[in-house]
Structure formats: structure tokens, C-alpha cells
């Protein structure tokens, strides 16, 4: 049995059941309804499931991950001493925008393993950067109040705190 997934642009992706099982939303939509309704929603190839928030490029990338993990369990949150396989790290890469899109899509599609991997990818990109560098990388605005800046100076042990402790 296979299922057709339709991306935001309308592109269609035909996936097998083991691959679709990795996508929580699709699994629930296609097979999970069987438990509640007595029949599955998508029972033949002709039916498609529209994933309105996922673009074609991201969906194809996600399906690569699902294809890789169709026969084995990915790392999920809660595993102690997590160490991601090399394939995972090569898959997620270091392109921050791409990782963010994958992260949003994994959250939307309910894929915990990919969500964790994307979080790991972002954490790796943040590694070694100071706050200013993180802001520049992600386009974040430092919107601290004066009071908070003083607090941070105290945390950092800057000379200003020693000269003006108030």
C-alpha cells in the first residue's frame, strides 16, 4: 500500500507505508482513523493527503530521512548519552535556514526523531558563537532593557559592575 502526499505547491509524492509511518500526521490520517472510524481514510493510491504547510523541497528532504529510517528506529528525546549517527549529521548539514524549515515541518508533521535531529543541527550551528554572533546569524534583535543589560554585565563580571555596583 502506498500513499500520495501533496505539498504546498501541489507536487505529489508517492510513498510506501513504512515511509509514511514515520510521519505522524500521515500515519494518523491514513491509518489511525481506522481505530476510531472503523475504516482507514486513505486506503488506495488515488487518495492524496495535502500537507499545506510543507513546500516541495522540504517535503522531499524529509522523505529522504523517512526512507532512511523506514526499517530502524531513530534517536528520540529521552535517550541518554545521545550520539547521532554520521549520516544524520551529514543529512541535516549546517544551512541554518534549511534546518529551520525542516524543524518547522517536522513539528508540523509530528516526526519526533527528525525534530530532535533538527534541534541538534541548530545547536551545533550555535556552538561557539557569542550572543552578538547568534543575533547576526539568526536575524534576532537584541531587545534588552537597560535593567537587563546591567544584570548581564553583573553576570559577566564586567568592570562596570565593579566600578558602579548599584
Amino acid at each position: 500500500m502506498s500513499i500520495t502526499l501533496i505539498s504546498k505547491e501541489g507536487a505529489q509524492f508517492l510513498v510506501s507505508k513504512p515511509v509514511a509511518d514515520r510521519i505522524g500526521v500521515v500515519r494518523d490520517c491514513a491509518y489511525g482513523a481506522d481505530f476510531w472510524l472503523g475504516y482507514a481514510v486513505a486506503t488506495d493510491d488515488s487518495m492524496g493527503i495535502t500537507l499545506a504547510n510543507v513546500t516541495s523541497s522540504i517535503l522531499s528532504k524529509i522523505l529522504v530521512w523517512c526512507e532512511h529510517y523506514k526499517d530502524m528506529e531513530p534517536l528520540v528525546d529521552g535517550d541518554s548519552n545521545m550520539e547521532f549517527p554520521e549520516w544524520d549529521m551529514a543529512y541535516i548539514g549546517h544551512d541554518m535556514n534549511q534546518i529551520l524549515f525542516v524543524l518547522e515541518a517536522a513539528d508540523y508533521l509530528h516526526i519526533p526523531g527528525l525534530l530532535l535531529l533538527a534541534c541538534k543541527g541548530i545547536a551545533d550551528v550555535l556552538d561557539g558563537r557569542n550572543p552578538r554572533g547568534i543575533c547576526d546569524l539568526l536575524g534576532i534583535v537584541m531587545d534588552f532593557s537597560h535593567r537587563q543589560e546591567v544584570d548581564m554585565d553583573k553576570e559577566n563580571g564586567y568592570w562596570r559592575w565593579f566600578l558602579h555596583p548599584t
Partner: protein
Amino acid sequence: MRKQMAQRKSPRSDRRLAKCHVSSLRHCHVSLPYFSVVCILSIRRSDETHVVMSRTCPRPRTCSMSRVDAADVLTDMQATAVVIYIRARYPRSYHQDIQCQIQLLNNLHHDIHSSCNMATEFLTPFSTFLTTPINSLPNEILLDIFELAVEDVWTRNTKDGHNCAFKLSQVCERWRSIMLNHTIMWRRLHIGDGLGQRQRTLECLRRIQGNRFSPQESYPWVSIDNHLTGPALEIDINCGDTNKYCAGVTLRKYLHRVTKLRISASPEPMLVMTKFCHKEPAPLLEELTIVPQVGATRWATYISGVDLEDLFRNEAPLLRKVDLTLVHLRWPKQLLKNLRFLTLRWAPFGDWPQLYNLLDALAASPELEELHLLCPPDALHPSYPDFGPAQDLFRDVADAADRGTKVFLPCFKMLALENAFIETLPLLVPFFDVPNIEELRLIADDDQSELRLGDLPSCDFFDRVIALRITGAGFESMHATARLVALIDAMPKLDKLKLQAGAGPQLLQHYIRELEDATRWAM
């Protein structure tokens, strides 16, 4: 009619109209509101007849004059002259009101313009915020990202990991809010030396202590009592004299919440901290590492009253992973029980266990999975050429052999021996009954050209090993390679040979030569 019109019109307007013999004034009711600019077309048709009519009005909705098309009038009446009067009437009182209203409108316009600018300035950050993808992530996912980021760095370097939490809290207000509202992000505590470290330690402790709003029962939250609840802590102490009391007090106050504790300090801080550790139990402690810094090892041997045997008041029931450099005076029997991972690092002048001590400790940990006996390079000091870890361990080998007992470890999977401890292999493994042994790891940074393995005994240990990992370039001599080959030959089930960190060229050459010889023999 004229009277009515005279009442309506201004005096000037009346004078102008009075000169005309206007019979058709009845059609011209010039009752204009103010602001009206009136074009009056006066056409003299004959000497006796005048026609006055309106032509245009810029504000026709306020003009009540009857409208007559001038072109038609000119055609029909054969006008001989056209006079256009343009009048604008602005009475003084109304003029002032109008000026005021104009001023008000100008002010209002200015205010609106300012408000627009302010709104633009106010909304720009929001638009930037919304267009930044990471800002659209929910707090839970951001928290996962922060947790992974801090954990990764902490695993590599505890000091950097500790600072990483502070860095993440200084990016923007939202991130800071998330970090400060989750005490779990501050559970990794590094106490070290250096500028600002003490301040950061105290700030971290304040954050751990300050948020008690949602104690949970599940890991990593604990609730020992109602007053000191919070996340379980991982503490790494790596300090000199500067923060030793800060570290000691922290240990005394939070030891009941610590799951992982690493102490790496110079002599005096080590004394202070171990003394504090004697006073409190560690009910949640799972991992313990005590590594004296350079200079602390020898000094520590003279410390009295800091034996590890009495550490944590003998209350560390969950302790599963221990990494010790043995600088204490007594073998810590009470500490080494129910373990899964045991690492013992040799130190000169330390009180190394004799074999029966080690076997007793292993027997007290039936779930032990890994045993590491580590010895730093150049541990054999020239002044003690014949006195090394191996000899130290087997001073009582005769007594232990007389006992004739084996230690049954059903979960045991790996034995790692480093440098001088490699020699203990043939002496140690006959005492092990390990049905599930998988890997033997030999780490050789020292030159092993004088390796004394002796005759390898036939025992179950060698029969069951399936993987051999060799790390380091210590086996490059011919003699060491020959001993290694003998060891490999003694392990019939070996099917994985892992060579790391420079190990292997000589060994591979040996097997290539052997293969070539076998090929020639076959031909």
C-alpha cells in the same frame, strides 16, 4: 424681493448690483455661504436690460445660485459685453475661527504624522521578529535546542558548557525569559577559577534556588523536601584556592541533589571539598570522578581523614559509575559496590589495592559492565624501575591464587588496560568468570618493547572475546608485535580488530608477511 436680497448680501455686493437695471435678478439669489468664490456673469443685452447669472462656483454644493449656461445665454441674448466679478467673502470673525481650525488641522496632521512614525518604529521590530524564522518556534522547541547546545558543549568542556547557558540567556529578551524560567537549564554547575567565575557560580546557584514554582517528580527533578527542591545537578569542580570554600559550601548545600560530581583540584581545595563531602549523603549521585591536579597526587597521600571510604557518609545508593585516582590511604570498599562502570587510575604513592581487594570490589558489583585500569605514560619512575602498577596489584598474587575463587560478572562486556597495566592481563583474567565478555581494549602510549606477558593461560576469558581494540603506537617494536600476535592467536573467537591512534602498521605488516608465506606454501 430686493429688500430680501439686500438683507442677504453684503453692502459691497449690493452696490455693485444696484447699478444694474436688472430685471432678472429674481433668478439670482446670491445667498452664498462663506468660502464661496462666486463668478458672476453680467451680460448687457440692451441699454435697458441686464441679466445677472452665476457661471461657476468652486464649491457648488454650498452654492444656492441658479445655474445658467453662459454659452447659451450669450447665444440667445446676443450679449454685447461680459463682466466677470469674482468675490470671496471672509468675515473677520469667521476668518479667525478658520485660522484656528487650520492651525488645529495642521497640529492634528503633525500629530498623525508623528504617530505614524512612532508606529512604524514600534512595528519594525515586530515585523523583523515575525520574519525571522526562529522566532516563530514555540518555547518548548527552543528549550530543546538550548538543552542540546548546552549539553554538547558541557560534554566537551564543562567550563564552556557552563558559560554557554549564560551566552544563550544574553541573546534577546525572549531567550532570556525562557532560560531564566527553566531552572533545568542551570543544573550544570562549573566551579572554577578566573575572572567572573565566582560571580557566575553564585548567580547560577541563585537561579537554581530561586525558581521553585513547578517541582516535578520525574527526572531530572527531585523533591527531597519542601524547601530544597529543584533540578538534579551536575557539578564540576575544577578550581584552585580561589573558590575552594565556595565549592565546599556548594557541595554541602546541594550534594543531596547532585547526580554527577567531578572534582579536579589542587591539594588544598581537594582537602576542603572532600571534607565537606564527608558531612552530607549523596542519595542521587550516579557518577563520581575524582582526579587530582598535578601536584595534588603526592600531597594528597599525606592527607589524613579524607579517605574515600567514608565519603558521603556511606550513603550513595545510586552510584553506578566511578572514576578514581587512588590517592587515598584506604581502599574504599563501601564506595565500590553495585557499580556498572569502574575506572581506576594509578598514581604514584597511592594506596593501590591488592588483588583480593580488587576482586572483592568486583564481586560486590555483579552488574559491572566495564572495568578500566589506567596508568599514565611514564608512570614507572626511573627511581623505581621495578615497581609499577602491575607489581603493586599483584603483591599478594600467591594469596589470591590460593583462594581459588572466580568473580562471576554476568554483565561484564569490556576490560581496558593502559600502558603498564597491560602486563597484568595474564594474571588478572583467570580470576574472571565473564560469560558475556565482548571486547578487550589495550591502550599503549608507552613503548611496550619490554612487554612481559609471559605465557598466556588458557581460560574462558580469552575464549570468549570477540573484539580487540588497540590504541596508541606503543606496540610498534618487533617484540611487542610478537606478543600481540600471540595474544590474538590465543583468542579463537576474535573477529573484530580495531586499530586506533597510530596502532597497527607493524601488526599489519606481520600479517601481510604471514599471508604471503602461506600463499607461497600453498603454491
